[in-house]
């Protein structure tokens, strides 16, 4: 009996889940250099949006996903305009305290609106159960998660490297003053970027409900995992968190299968090892998104 191919698949699927719920944080925290611990709150908003639309209006699960993105993105956009924007130039400690406060408020709000009960989504039959591919049982929903990662990371990569918006984001992040001097509306770019990040968080939250569950504690419960992926991967890159989440996912699943008694610790041991080996994160070995063209400008100024 060879368990390895199945484990590799499960690991990649778990990694995909980690990536999906964390990538939004890589945008808001990494790209914008804003310590956004409120990420989980926006993931939770996306999750509740998906559950609410499907229970209230009987919408199919897949149709609620864009809505989860939109609702969380819009919530992020408003929160950024009203609250977070004032903290961009504040110290990191202030950002941490403020965003953690935001998380607690969101937990209270979710409890008030939806109660403390677990929520669940109903998957379409096509995403349930397993399919057998070359003798290996593959979970359909897990396949779907892996597919979602491929599509989303390609889309985000193109958005950041090939579009005008992407160039503006990179410019604004690398040197805010210079970008403003060139006539860029940095405030707007940051707002949109934050909305994109929180929208991705919402989408990740909605995709995660089936596996992670959803209750008001969601915003806090999985914070460690979001941070793990972004810190190990290197904030502000796309490839870093992608590699990190796959690595963490595969090692975690394989570790729990072969060494169940060490189950809870493997992912943390791996984090320590990876951080010792790559203190700046896996993604910064190569030129990162945020450091592509305008980094030359920065260096000249220095």
């Amino acid at each position: 009996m060879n368990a390895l191919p199945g484990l590799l698949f499960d690991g990649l699927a778990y990694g995909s889940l980690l990536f999906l719920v964390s990538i939004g944080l890589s945008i808001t925290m990494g790209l914008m250099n804003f310590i956004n611990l409120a990420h989980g709150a926006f993931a939770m908003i996306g999750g509740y949006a998906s559950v609410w639309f499907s229970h209230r209006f009987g919408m199919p699960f897949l149709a609620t996903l864009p809505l989860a993105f939109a609702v969380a993105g819009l919530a992020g956009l408003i929160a950024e305009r009203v609250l977070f924007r004032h903290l961009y130039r504040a110290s990191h400690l202030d950002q941490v305290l403020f965003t953690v406060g935001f998380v607690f408020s969101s937990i209270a709000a979710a409890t008030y609106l939806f109660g403390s009960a677990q929520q669940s989504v109903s998957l379409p039959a096509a995403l349930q159960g397993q399919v057998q591919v070359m003798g290996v049982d593959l979970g359909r929903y897990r396949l779907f998660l892996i597919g979602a990662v491929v599509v989303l990371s390609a889309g985000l990569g193109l958005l950041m490297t090939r579009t005008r918006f992407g160039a503006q984001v990179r410019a604004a992040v690398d040197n805010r003053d210079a970008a403003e001097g060139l006539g860029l509306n940095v405030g707007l770019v940051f707002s949109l970027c934050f909305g994109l990040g929180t929208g991705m968080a919402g989408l990740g939250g909605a995709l995660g409900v089936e596996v992670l569950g959803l209750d008001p504690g969601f915003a806090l419960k999985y914070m460690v995992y979001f941070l793990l992926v972004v810190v190990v991967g290197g904030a502000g890159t796309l490839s870093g968190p992608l590699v990190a989440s796959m690595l963490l996912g595969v090692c975690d699943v394989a570790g729990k299968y072969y060494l169940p008694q060490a189950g809870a610790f493997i992912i943390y041991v791996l984090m320590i090892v990876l951080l010792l080996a790559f203190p700046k994160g896996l993604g910064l070995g190569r030129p990162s998104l945020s450091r592509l063209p305008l980094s030359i400008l920065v260096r000249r100024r220095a």
Partner: protein
Amino acid sequence: MIRRSFLAGCTAIATLAAMPSAGPAAAAADTVKVGVLLPLSGPFSQYGRQMQNGIALFLKQHGTSVAGKTIELVVKDDGGIAPDRARRAVQDLIVRDKVDVLAGFTFTASAMAAAPMAKEARKAMIVMNASSSGITAASPYMIRVGQTLPQITEPAGRYAAGQGFRSIYTVVADVTAGHDAEAAFIRGVEAGGGKVSGSLRVPAQNPDFAPFVQRIKDAKPDAVFAWLPPGEAAIGFIKEFDQRGLAAQGITMLGTGDLTDELTIMQTGDAGLGVVTTGHYSMAHPSAMNTEFVASYLADYPQDKWPNFLSVSAYDGMAALYLGLEKTGGDASGPALAGALAGASFESPRGPIRIDAATRDIVQTVYVRKVERVGERLMNVEIHEFPESRDTAAAH
């Protein structure tokens, strides 16, 4: 706050209604103040709601006057598993609110925090859900009406042994309650002449059960016993078990009642079908009293969904208090109430229950139930019973 004042409002109205019979001379001495400690905020507030509903339902059905006394509730929130907060709240209840009786206690941590104070102040403590083994030894005035974990777990082992399963695995969360459940289950299996072939302990907080479920699938046992914290862990495990087709492969999932309580199977959906658990209360329990209980609960609290073991235990806690006060002629002091209730038995929506004369712990029938579709809903349908089940761990 809203809920608290709501309940206080209910009591006030009921008190007003009871006034004429009590007469204008009614003084504080004619009132029995009951301090109720429940998790009304935080991640377990749903538990608190269930229990609060159970208490309110009992008061609505039986009125607030018993043995010439008027019952008055003072409800406090312990916020979940927070012994320090529970200690403060209980101190407040005893010293400032001057309650006569303490009730509630959803978690062992809260009950154990309250026990020394209740013992010193000689207040009766009606424990409605906290389920660690042997806690009634902590105060001579503590009475338990809910369940104990070994009490509902060991029958699962005995049932499994009786089914002729050749290989049985256990999967428990790596926390004290999980270890207790594992030990009780194994004891039950061995008492029935069977053997457990493998035990797995998993992190209590575990986002993905795939590797553990796959491990079980590859080991191909006949049955798996699971004890996991309620909420996303239990739901996640049941779903993964279903997605990977373990049930289809002929592996039976066993558990304790909390694994498939009425609120949990609402979330697992059809993935929960066929899971066999042992517990003290099922909404589907066939008795006239339960039918009436369920109907009144659903009529009064439609927004809180279905009644589960928590609302029943809280309902029974109030029933025990009323029974005790009737026996003592209204004397609510700890020694009198504990003495009156030791050995008492009465009918509950779950079936007949008894308070052990020596340990003041609950003795009751533990039912083996299977999750089946009944009409629109999934229900725990009782298929077998173990009468007179006790807290087995305390005896060992």
